[in-house]
């Protein structure tokens, strides 16, 4: 359905997106994951035909959207990262305005407005001015506006940043529902691992403009398959201790963050006793040691040496 081929975008000297390849099939929910500044929004602007890439092509049903954006725009809905609404209009008025802009008229417009309000759960607050909404309600309306013209493809740029848990849950459910019941293909961007893990079949992980991993959830997890992570928290850390860990024969990798160390080892390895001994020797007081199967978060940590959230 949508395909990015060797997309790059350069701002002055630096690449915001570098050589990105990506595809989406009809009916999928695809996740685009990356920390702030990874280049997600830039990639989205390019694939929604708002920004021209420095190099590369974007195809929608095998036709270039750069050369011919109109037919693509008709069936694509974009949820921008910013709240792009008129703050002093009500939810209903916002929807009516954008509906008119999309040349939906009369009874049909009224019906679409009602439907969308239903989907985003703002029907009972539709007469209130957006200014007075909570962050979560604004986010929901921000999504609603993109749904007015019944898009086949919905591109969402971090639709859950800065909102309460309840709204977040509501949005995640809405996304699932749109995909299941209305067969909308969705690109879901986030820097929250668990959202992407919950929603998406296939995932792309970006960092500093580069795609660092791509595949189904299982494929990505397989990057660390056969491994488990041991998360160690200590009162303080010393270099000899870390060195010791890193050079320990059975350890695959070590990532240090603040007073927390994540050690990757093969599944069958039991490091517990040795770990305690090493800590003892280095005079380090352990606060906790957790052993778990790796998550996407660990994958990211493993690939970049940094945590996803800063």
């Amino acid at each position: 359905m949508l395909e990015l081929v060797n997309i790059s975008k350069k701002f002055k000297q630096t690449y915001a997106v570098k050589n990105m390849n990506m595809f989406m099939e009809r009916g999928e929910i695809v996740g685009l994951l990356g920390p702030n500044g990874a280049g997600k929004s830039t990639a989205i602007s390019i694939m929604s035909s708002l920004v021209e890439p420095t190099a590369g092509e974007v195809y929608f049903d095998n036709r270039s959207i750069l050369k011919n954006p109109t037919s693509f725009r008709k069936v694509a809905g974009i949820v921008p990262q910013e709240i792009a609404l008129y703050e002093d209009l009500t939810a209903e008025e916002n929807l009516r305005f954008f509906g008119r802009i999309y040349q939906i008229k009369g009874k049909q417009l009224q019906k679409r407005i009602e439907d969308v309000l239903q989907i985003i759960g703002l029907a009972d607050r539709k007469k209130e001015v957006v200014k007075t909404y909570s962050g979560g309600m604004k986010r929901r309306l921000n999504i609603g506006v993109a749904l007015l013209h019944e898009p086949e493809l919905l591109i969402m740029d971090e639709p859950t940043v800065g909102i309460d848990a309840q709204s977040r849950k509501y949005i995640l459910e809405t996304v699932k529902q749109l995909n299941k019941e209305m067969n909308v293909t969705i690109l879901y961007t986030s820097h929250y691992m668990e959202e992407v893990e919950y929603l998406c079949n296939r995932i792309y992980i970006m960092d500093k403009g580069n795609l660092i991993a791509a595949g189904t959830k299982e494929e990505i997890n397989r990057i660390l398959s056969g491994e488990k992570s041991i998360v160690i928290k200590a009162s303080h850390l010393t270099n000899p201790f870390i060195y010791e860990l890193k050079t320990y024969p059975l350890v695959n990798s070590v990532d240090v963050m603040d007073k927390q160390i994540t050690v990757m080892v093969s599944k069958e390895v039991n490091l517990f006793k040795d770990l305690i001994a090493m800590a003892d020797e280095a005079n380090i007081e352990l606060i906790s040691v957790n052993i778990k199967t790796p998550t996407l978060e660990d994958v990211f940590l493993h690939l970049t040496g940094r945590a996803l959230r800063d």
Partner: protein
Amino acid sequence: MTAILLAKLKHLLRNPWAFLGFTGICIVFALIMGLTGFESRSSVPIVIADEEVTGSSILTTLNDEESISFKEVEEDALIQSVKEGKAEVGAILNKDTYELIVGVESTTVSSVDNMIRQAYTEYGQRQKIIEHIGDLKQTENALQKEIDEASKNPVFSVTTSNFTTDQTMMYDPIYQYVFGFGLFFVIYTVAYNVLPMLIEKQEGVWDRLILSPVKKWKMYAGNMIYSFCIGYLQVLIIFSFFYFVFGVDFNGKFPETLLLLIPYVFTIVALSILLTAIVKNSQQFNAFITILAVCMAMVGGAYWPIEIVESNFLIAISKINPLTYGMEILHGVVNYGYSLEELFYPVSILLLMGTVMIGVGIHLMERRHI
């Protein structure tokens, strides 16, 4: 495009205060300045203490003064108004002498003193001449001739001049203030209504419109038409207020005046578009427009008549200032009775400036993709 205009209109109806505020302030300023302008030009109260003064040349001489009007009042009223500071100075006219009642020493006082002294001197001269030649039984006519002759070739003469009596700038100051403040405040109103375009671009509303089937020129046109209308509405309200409520008659050129405001408001819309394209964010825009508007007003003759600006540099600057032409057009049509050809020049400069600024502005915005 209708949808865009409707949304903007709703926005205005929900937040009318900035618009009403600017309009109100403008009217109040023009009113205060215009009225105080009248006061200082006119009204020196006089008391006539001797019957003989009434029919004499003293009064006629004083009444001929252009820069100050002498009004006859009762003695009590005179003292009262000097006391309260309504008049800087008053005069009591006797047969041979006069008395000045001075509230504050000022240039007005000395020029009033001069005027009255001169009136008395002339009167005295006439009296003397009549006395001297009375015996010779000359006819009144001949006498008059002689006096005229004498005044044409005086023994010594004093030339007085000050700028308020300068003939080229003699018009009712109320126009200066109505035009000046009107054109000044409309810059803010227009600019603050173009600004949302910048904000919408930053917040993504603009992108939403770009993704929709709406044509881009319609998006620009909708914004510009709205800003124009709101700016024009403001000057319309202000000028109508003075026309209908205060009876300022624009020398019978009210419809023409309103019509000729169009090119100016258009150019201000264009200027705001250009500014939007140059600045990075709305804070910069606000800072810029505040400074720019004040500079334009000072250099363009909104606060004081452009004629008193003497620096060549400022005059050069004023030539690229839309406000200069706006003022020229308004003064031209109302106070100087410009012909169509004479108006054509400033009008076409404004339209040209406007077109260029819109062109450059939109081009810059599109290229920077903001």
